[in-house]
Every structure is written in structure tokens, then in C-alpha cells.
């Protein structure tokens, strides 16, 4: 039952479903969620945190007895993906924070995902074990070896059911390929290769080969003093395995075709919007830096997020986006303060819904925003414990810009800039969203009528 698939904003009422994480006032830094991702079927939901851990939730089977509980997500597996490391050569600590998780499509009973910190990408296999062999000849049930001379009868070991055990094992470690910090990974549609991007370079890997990678983009200038632009995000086209895009700190997107050259330094397409002179300020360049780029599921569009807006681009039109949505334009008059406290450098992500009709991104004060591309309506919702009663409908929030503040509104100066929603995820086919608010993961679903 795909409720709400492709439905219009006015028909969708978002309800609280679950929240994961502690309620304690003191948040340990390592519990801060740094990435959220559904797998291709939506059955699994993975989170990575600053402490290098990955937690995978699995959706329980829908029960006919409780149709209003549309499959809750429960912990399926938890493992330590990355540990803090020390680079002795450069005297640098390498953070264990998980920057990104990307799932591979499922090809057998096991699940595979890529997780990365600043320097190293790892391929993890998550598999179930629910049977174990019993009745070995040479050892007893406790594993102790039997005295061979005491064995008089031979038997065939039998598989017997056991309590379900989910194991995560690292199958590949892709290390030592990035001098700078990895900001993106993307699995190719051929399912044989993937790319990892850092500030200045993008590398192409084959899943089977860990000791070599091909450098496909390198924007490092011969002289570092000439450096004016860095790579901020990169992604493969969902269907064309030779095509990928990467975004830059100057607000541009380059689309590259790997068939044209081994080193894709010359782009096939260059997306840039001319600057609006009326909005020019000292911070124009900083706020134009793109923090996330995502292909639509159809592959026809790309969406980019910069500090104040989300933009949708048609791949066939390079000179400007086809749609621009204001996320929190009221911050435009606060840029100096936001620059002073470094909030202006916050990297918000953005996501498409399954039908590419609605886009979502986060903001401050634990607010997140959704924009319906068809109706042009938008809504601001909040992830907070106060709205966390089961199936409670989320009330739209509003920020008051100036003048008289209405009862339910919040003024710009009251916004809590330490509560930022940087990471969100949308189920591939249903109206289920996961929103990471610091150390808590909120899951919202649309109301089932």
C-alpha cells in the first residue's frame, strides 16, 4: 500500500512515528549523527555517527492486525566502522566520523554498504545467521575436541535453527588514496565501480580492487597559492554509468563523461547561475558554495543546496536552474553574525522523494523544509521531543521575520543555531522520512487515512 506516493502537499499530513537516541541533556559528541541513508528498497535505514559507528535499522513486517503501524524500524545491526587514527607522517589525527554511507543494491541474501570517514572507504557486508550446524564428529557441542579413539559412530552434521544473529564484516578497505578530506562517495549504476571525492580530487574504484584507484578529476593547481575553488560533492548519474557530476565551492556544477578522457578535467556541461547583483554582499561567494548535489531518481534533474536555497537544474539547461526555493531567506540579513560564529559554513544536505515531486532539506532550530515542485507549496516542520507522541500530526512552523509575531511563530532571533538539521533521508517509494537532529533520529510517516 503506497500511501501518498506522488501525492500533493496538501494531502499529506506528516506524523511522528519514532525517535531513536537518548533524551539526555548532555550529548556526547560521538553520538552526533553524521549521515542517514535508506537502502534501495527502504527496508533498511543506516546512520553513521561522529564516533565512527554505524547503526542499521530494519523495518518490521507490516502486520494485518495493526495496519496503522506501517512497519516500525528497529535496530538490526550496530558496528564500529571506523576508529580514530593517527597519521604519524603528518602528525595529524584522522577523525573516525562517518561522513557518508551508501548502500549497494541487494544481489543476494547479504546487504552491502560503503561507509567512509575523511580518508578511508570501507565496504561492509551485513549478513544474517539463523542456523548453525550441530553434530560434528570430531568436536562436541562446546567445541572441545573429542578423543578420536572414543568415536564409534559417524554422523552427518545437521543445520538447526538458532537465534538470529546479524554480523557485519568489513570486506574491503580502500585506503591511502586521498590526501584531502573525503566529502562524497557514490555507487555507479554498473554496481562494479564507485567514486570517492575529496576537496581537490575524485577517484574511481573497482569494488574488487583495493590497492589501486583511478584519479578521474584533479583540480589541484600547480601552485597552491592559486587555489580558489574546491570540490564539495559528487554523484554518479543513476542510469548512465559513464556520467557523474561534481559541485564546487563557487556554486557551479560540472557534469563529466568518463568516455571522453581518462582524466575528466574538462567538463561536458557546466552549470552556473549568473549572480543577482541586487543580492550581492561580502558573503555572496561563501553562501553560494554548494553543500550537496543529488540527481533526481529519473536522472533528468540535479538538485543543489547552498546556504540559503535549494535549486533544481535541468540537465539540458546550463545557464540557470529551473527552480529555486528559499529555505530560510530571513537569514540573509544575519549573514555577518552567522559568518562570525561559523554557522555560514554549515553543510546542509537535500533529498528527493521517490517520485521526484517533493524535495526536502534541513534548517536551524531543528526545522526542516519540504517543497512540492508541482503545487509550489512548501512547509516547515520541526523535529522535537515535544511533538513526539505516537502518530501525532506535525504542525507546520513559521518563522516571523519582522513586525508583530503571532502566537505560534518564532522570531529569527530566537532560533537555536546549535540545533541544525543537516542530514535527512526519504524512503525510495513511500512517504517515510528520517531526520537526524544532533544525536536523535526522527522517523516521520504520512498519515494513513
Amino acid at each position, binding site marked *: 500500500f503506497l500511501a501518498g506516493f506522488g501525492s500533493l502537499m496538501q494531502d499529506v499530513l506528516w506524523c511522528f512515528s519514532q525517535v531513536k537516541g537518548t533524551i539526555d541533556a548532555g550529548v556526547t559528541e560521538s553520538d552526533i549523527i553524521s549521515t542517514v541513508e535508506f537502502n534501495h528498497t527502504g527496508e533498511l535505514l543506516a546512520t553513521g555517527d561522529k564516533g565512527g559507528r554505524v547503526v542499521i535499522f530494519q523495518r518490521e513486517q507490516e502486520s494485518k492486525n495493526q495496519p496503522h503501524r506501517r512497519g516500525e524500524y528497529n535496530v538490526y545491526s550496530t558496528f564500529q566502522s571506523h576508529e580514530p587514527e593517527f597519521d604519524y607522517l603528518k602528525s595529524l589525527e584522522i577523525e573516525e566520523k562517518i561522513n557518508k554511507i551508501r548502500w549497494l543494491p541487494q544481489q543476494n541474501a547479504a546487504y552491502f554498504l560503503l561507509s567512509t570517514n575523511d580518508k578511508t572507504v570501507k565496504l561492509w557486508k551485513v549478513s544474517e545467521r539463523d542456523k548453525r550446524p550441530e553434530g560434528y564428529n570430531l568436536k562436541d557441542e562446546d567445541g572441545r575436541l573429542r578423543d578420536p579413539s572414543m568415536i564409534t559412530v559417524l554422523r552427518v552434521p545437521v543445520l538447526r535453527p538458532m537465534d538470529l544473529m546479524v554480523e557485519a564484516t568489513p570486506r574491503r578497505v580502500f585506503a591511502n588514496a586521498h590526501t584531502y578530506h573525503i566529502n562524497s562517495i557514490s555507487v555507479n549504476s554498473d554496481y562494479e565501480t564507485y567514486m570517492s571525492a575529496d576537496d581537490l580530487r575524485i577517484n574511481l574504484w573497482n569494488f574488487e580492487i583495493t590497492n589501486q584507484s583511478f584519479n578521474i578529476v584533479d583540480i589541484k593547481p600547480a601552485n597552491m597559492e592559486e587555489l580558489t575553488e574546491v570540490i564539495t560533492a559528487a554523484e554518479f548519474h543513476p542510469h548512465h554509468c559513464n556520467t557523474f557530476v561534481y559541485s564546487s565551492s563557487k556554486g557551479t556544477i560540472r557534469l563529466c563523461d568518463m568516455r571522453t578522457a581518462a582524466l575528466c578535467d574538462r567538463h561536458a556541461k557546466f552549470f552556473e547561475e549568473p549572480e543577482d547583483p541586487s543580492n550581492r554582499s561580502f558573503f555572496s561567494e561563501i553562501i553560494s558554495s554548494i553543500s550537496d548535489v543529488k540527481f533526481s531518481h529519473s536522472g533528468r534533474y540535479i538538485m543543489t543546496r547552498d546556504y540559503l536555497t535549494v535549486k533544481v537544474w535541468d540537465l539540458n539547461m546550463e545557464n540557470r536552474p529551473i527552480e529555486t526555493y528559499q529555505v530560510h531567506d530571513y537569514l540573509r540579513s544575519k549573514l555577518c553574525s552567522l559568518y562570525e560564529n*561559523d554557522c555560514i559554513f554549515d553543510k546542509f544536505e537535500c533529498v528527493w522523494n521517490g517520485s521526484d515531486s517533493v524535495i526536502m532539506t534541513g534548517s536551524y532550530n531543528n526545522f526542516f523544509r519540504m517543497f512540492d515542485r508541482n503545487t509550489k507549496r512548501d512547509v516547515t516542520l520541526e523535529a522535537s521531543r515535544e511533538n513526539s507522541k505516537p502518530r501525532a500530526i506535525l504542525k507546520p512552523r513559521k518563522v516571523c521575520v519582522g513586525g508583530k509575531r503571532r502566537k505560534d511563530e518564532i522570531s529569527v532571533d530566537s532560533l537555536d543555531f546549535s540545533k541544525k538539521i543537516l542530514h535527512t533521508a526519504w524512503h525510495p517509494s513511500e512517504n517515510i522520512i528520517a531526520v537526524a537532529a544532533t544525536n536523535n533520529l526522527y522517523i516521520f510517516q504520512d498519515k494513513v487515512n
Partner: protein
Amino acid sequence: MLGRGLKRKLSDYEESMAGLSCAFDSSRGLPYPLKRQLVLNMCLTKLQTYKMLVEPNLHRSVLIANTVRQIQEEMRQESNQQPVNICPGIAPASHSYAGMESPGISLQLPSGVGQQESHCCDLRSVEDPIENSLLIVSDDDMSSAISSILKDLDFVEDISPPTCLVPTGDDQPKFPENTGLKLEDDRQDLKGAECVFGSFEISNSTSYLKDLAIDDIFEDIDTSMYDSDFCCPPLMPPRSPSLATEEPLKTFPSCNSSSANNIQICRTDLSELDHIMEILVGS
């Protein structure tokens, strides 16, 4: 001040900075050059802070450096259009930044008190105390500052240029013939050249080694045993200075045997030690 829940260290500097940035945001009355100066100060402060970090954030550094360049360019264009108005009594001196010797830009923090010394070509009149209380930095200062910061980033980040091929762990590096790799080789040459110019700090450290007397390096190795005629146990080759202090005593069992055999062995060992020392010292 923005929002609740923000943990901020209260220091005079930060308070005044916050006050100024709020003034920037809220007041329409601030004259443009003053706003620009404020932003410039904030940029330079941030860059200086990043310089002190072991691993500055490349993305942020680039964005801030670009903002500084943009302001710099604007100021340059303005000064080209207007006659230079030099503050009386202060000669415009262009410092080359000692991104070299000093930790970076020596900022006078705006405390709002009195006039600070300014070295620059400044368009504003001297009489305005508010404007003069902010740091005024010359063009060359800014350029050198940005250059030194970006150069340092290179030193910190990219000591070895990347190759297409990245050997990991115990794997032998393989080098397939590949046009992609060839391009990479060309780039490596460029990068090799770049490393030569690299950062001032690299050349600093190598001269340190040359300047040091050889004896000083091995100062803390206990060589008293080699001085005596007494027998010595089998000798370990001299270790590097960093390890020497920790282990030497443990590896040398007491030598209190005085048999002739031992003395023979000791003498052989001593000459071996001399030989090893010669190799290490390279004399």
C-alpha cells in the same frame, strides 16, 4: 548575539566581535567602508586562527581567502580611482608578511580604545576614531598573508603527490600502462617542482639538521661504556636520539667479568662500533 544554546567562550575580543557583527547586520547606518573593514578583519582573524591549527579546513580557508581577495580588489580599484590620502605622520610601509617568522598576521584586536598604528594607504580621514580603531591592513600584507596560508596548507596536506596507483599495506605497487597514468606522471613532475618551492617551513627544517653539530645529536646516548677498558657485552648499534633515552640501560647487561676472552671480544666490538659510527655520521 544569535540564538540560545550556542556555547561561546566569553572573551573581550569575541564580545566585541559579536557586537560588531550584530551592528553590521542590524544597522543600515554603518558606512560601507567600515562594514568592509569589519568583514576583512573577521576574515583575517579566522585565517590566522586556522593557521594555528594542525590541519586547517581547506574548504573554509579557500572561501575566506577568496573573500579577502575580493575585498582587496575592491579597495584597490577604489584607490586607483581616487587620489591616495595618506594619514599624516604615517608612511605607508608594505610589510612582507612574515608568514615566515611571525605566527601570521599580527592583529591588533579592536578594543575600541584610541588609535592604533596603521601602516597603509587609507582613504579615510584620521579624525574618525571609530574607523581608526579597527585594524587597517595594506594590500601587500593581505596578499602575502593569503599566500603564506595557502602554501602552508599545501605543506600540511599534500606532502606526497598522489599517483593513480595507490599501494596499500603490504601490496606491491603495480604500474599498468595507461594513458591516465601518463597524464598523472606529467602532473607529478609539476608537483615535484612545486614541492621545491613548497613552503618555507620545509627548508627551515632541513637547515636545522645541517646546522646542528653531529655530536649534539648523539649527546644523550650513554657512551661511557665505550670509554673504559672493561669488557663490554655485545654492543647494539647506536639508536636514534629519540629512542636512546628510553632503552640503553636495559640492553646493556652489567659488565663485571674480567676474563681475557671478554676483553678480546670487547676490543673487537669497539672497533665495530667505530665502524658503525663512521657509517652513521657519514664522515
